[in-house]
């Protein structure tokens, strides 16, 4: 049975790339959530991962490298009724886009951010990304990366993000459920997804991800920020699941003047009263 979000075309991904798996997961999640196609918008930056929306039958805004989050917030500001999903790469989101990442978390628009975390710059052929493991050699980091990778989950939790989770292409079912929960969650949801870049990352392979991850069990309380933080610091194996949830944060678009009253009518459907401009001018007398 075909998924209604499937857009069949020649993809630019390498055979075996984790992007394919994640694409499948995302399509299933969307279908199961029965989201109306017209009111769904994908936003992405530039990279191999960021091509994902090109292969879906959806509205999309495929913007600049590192700049997926600001347009996503802009879209919510113009029309809070749209379901907005951002799909991008680790370099795009945590490298070039780092400042938007931290501030979007604070701003807390109701969007879902899926990061294809292959721990490498795929499209530009194998340089280190902020999540590349220490020691990995690349054409630029010729003696190996000397820094510890960024920990996007710990970072998000330190910023009191509204929803913080990690999935893995190796855990299809679990990851699908996480993404569904993320989309349903009101506020900014981060889903960092482990996936292999079979061409440029010979360290973090499908097998490596399988062997170095485990699914968080029921005992973890995602409302406990301290606990979430220590979960986020765990490594070898890395936990998969929902780390942290904070539902009590105001949501960006709901705080904006046009929607403050609760009226969610999108901007394009609004017309201003005739007299407003006259009134504003008169006040200048």
């Amino acid at each position, binding site marked *: 049975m075909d998924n209604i979000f499937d857009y069949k075309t020649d993809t630019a991904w390498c055979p075996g790339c984790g992007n394919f798996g994640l694409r499948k997961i995302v399509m299933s999640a969307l279908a199961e959530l029965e989201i109306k196609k017209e009111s769904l918008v994908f936003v992405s930056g530039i990279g191999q991962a960021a091509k994902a929306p*090109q292969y879906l039958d959806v*509205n999309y805004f*495929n*913007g600049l490298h590192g700049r997926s989050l600001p347009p996503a917030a802009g879209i919510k500001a*113009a*029309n809070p009724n*749209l379901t907005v999903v951002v799909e991008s790469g680790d370099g795009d989101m945590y490298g070039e886009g780092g400042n938007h990442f931290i501030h979007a978390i604070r701003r807390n628009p109701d969007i879902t951010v899926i990061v294809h975390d292959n721990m490498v710059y795929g499209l530009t052929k194998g340089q280190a990304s902020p999540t590349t493991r220490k020691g990995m050699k690349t054409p630029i980091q010729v003696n190996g990366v000397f820094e510890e990778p960024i920990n996007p989950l710990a970072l998000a939790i330190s910023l009191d993000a509204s929803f913080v989770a990690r999935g893995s292409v190796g855990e299809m079912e679990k990851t699908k459920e996480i993404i569904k929960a993320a989309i349903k969650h009101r506020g900014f949801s981060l889903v960092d997804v482990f996936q292999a870049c079979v061409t440029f990352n010979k360290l973090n392979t499908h097998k490596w991800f399988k062997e170095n991850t485990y699914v968080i069990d029921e005992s973890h309380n995602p409302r406990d920020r301290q606990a979430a933080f220590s979960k986020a610091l765990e490594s070898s194996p890395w936990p998969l699941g929902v780390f942290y949830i904070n539902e009590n944060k105001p949501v960006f678009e709901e705080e904006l003047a046009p929607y403050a009253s609760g009226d969610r009518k999108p901007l394009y459907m609004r017309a*201003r009263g005739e007299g407003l*401009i006259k009134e*504003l001018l008169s006040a200048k007398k």
Partner: protein
Amino acid sequence: MAKKKAVGKTGKKTAKKIISPHGVSIVLAGEAGQGIQSIETLLVNVLKKDGFHVFATKEYMSRVRGGVNSTQLRVSQEPVRSYVDRMDIFIPLDGAAFERYKNKITKETAVIGDKTKLAYEKTINIPFNRIASEFGNALFSNTVAAGAVCGILGGSEEALYDYVKSVFARKGDEIVKSNIGAAKSGYEIGRGLKAEKIVDAGPGKKTSTKESLLLAGADAVAIGALAGGCDACFAYPMTPSTGVFTAMAGYASKAGIAVEQVEDEIGVINMALGAWYAGGRALVSTSGGGFALMTEGISLAGIIESPVVVHLAQRPGPATGLPTRTEQGDLNLALYAGHGVFPRIILAPGDTKQAFELSAGAFNLADKYQVPVFVMTDQYFVDTYYDTVDIDASKAEPVRHITETKEGYKRYALTKDGFSPRGIPSFGSGLVCADSDEHDESGRITEDLDGISKKMKDKRFKKFDAVKKAALPPVLTGPKNYTRLVVGWGSVYNTVIEALGLLGDRNTAFLFFPQVYPVPIAAKKYLEKAKTVIAVENNQTGQFADLLSADTGINISQRILKYNGMPFSVEELVRALVKKPGKAAGKRGKNG
């Protein structure tokens, strides 16, 4: 220096003043935080209510307290709208203020202030602080000063006290009373000076300016944008663009505007493009350094064919430069920002009426042509205000150009003129795909180099035609049979007009460009008619003259340029135009 002087007397002989034909120019100067701003506001409002035409502009340092700031106030029986060097009345609030402007003092200037603070013998002594203290608080000295000026100019006492009352009402009766006392005290000194002809500088007879509006450039841009249907405003604070942002924030609840201060300017422009994509009409307000960061985003607007309106308030660079000063130095930046070829529109209002109409129009142009539209102002322009009756709310109205989509909708459908109907998500049953990569008609990435990919380049290029044709024509002021033509853009407008009025040269006309790019087709015809073309620009090289030359093929080597961070004054323009400038204006650097 004399320790104690009679109030309202100079130490030396009486300085008799003359009623100026173009009203009175008053300069107030003092430290940031000393309250010059409040004297200015009080005077402008009272004198306007009183029937005078008023004009005010300020210049200030990049600091919050200290330094020396000043404000120039012109009061006249006729509309006055430009900056002058002349100081008929100069009120320095301290010694540093006096020092900074003393070289502008002429024998016509009445210097008024606390003689103990000013190293100037001819100071007409009004110890504002001491008088204020008599009413309970030295802070009321601003009220004293305002009252004094009111008295000198023959403003009505009633209007003065009414205004003082309204300003201080929320602070309680006691404060109102004291301030009215302080104002009265000042007023009487002022009236005395006038009566004794010590300072006789009345603006002439009153007219009726009660119904006219008092808008700064920033207000006109903001309200204009709203009139054009602006419903979102994203920015990151940066002088001198912040005024427009602040105005929008103030109107947000009333007008239903999505206002957000973004983490940086890159976020600003990208958020704005997201908003337009989803059906909003977003304004971005920024200045040189902030705009520089938007360069890549402007290019994105180019390829996704997104409308966006950028208010670019200029200040002197490079880099941080002189952050609170003025310059028309960012035209090249606006012209060339963004890699790749795509059309854009650059507007540059010369007065508040134009600012209102062009800002409104910017939204319709952006929406119609699916291009970035710039509204270029500068520090002088946004901070300057004067009374006007020209602004007509009914002259501006939002026109939306979005289309309801059907299934199979193609965002970048090829058409004869290059414009594809613009859909937005969830309005209709089609899908809207905006793509920063080169794309096919439906917005999907492509590398079909000689096929659709090249067609897309040609499609975007075609749009230049329509955009050029639609360019607002330049506006000619002065004799139709000119031999000498002054050309200008943006904030020089009123100053050139006043200067030419004073010059009274029958052969010189002024061609003003409310739209600087694309250069309107009519430009060439006007330029060809002139024997001499003189560009007046508040920048170092004559960026618009370069553009005009390149576009029309007519070399504009005569340029009157100013780039010290201050606007042109009427007087220096008159002098420069009398001199009939040669190539003196400085060698041209090709870029900036």
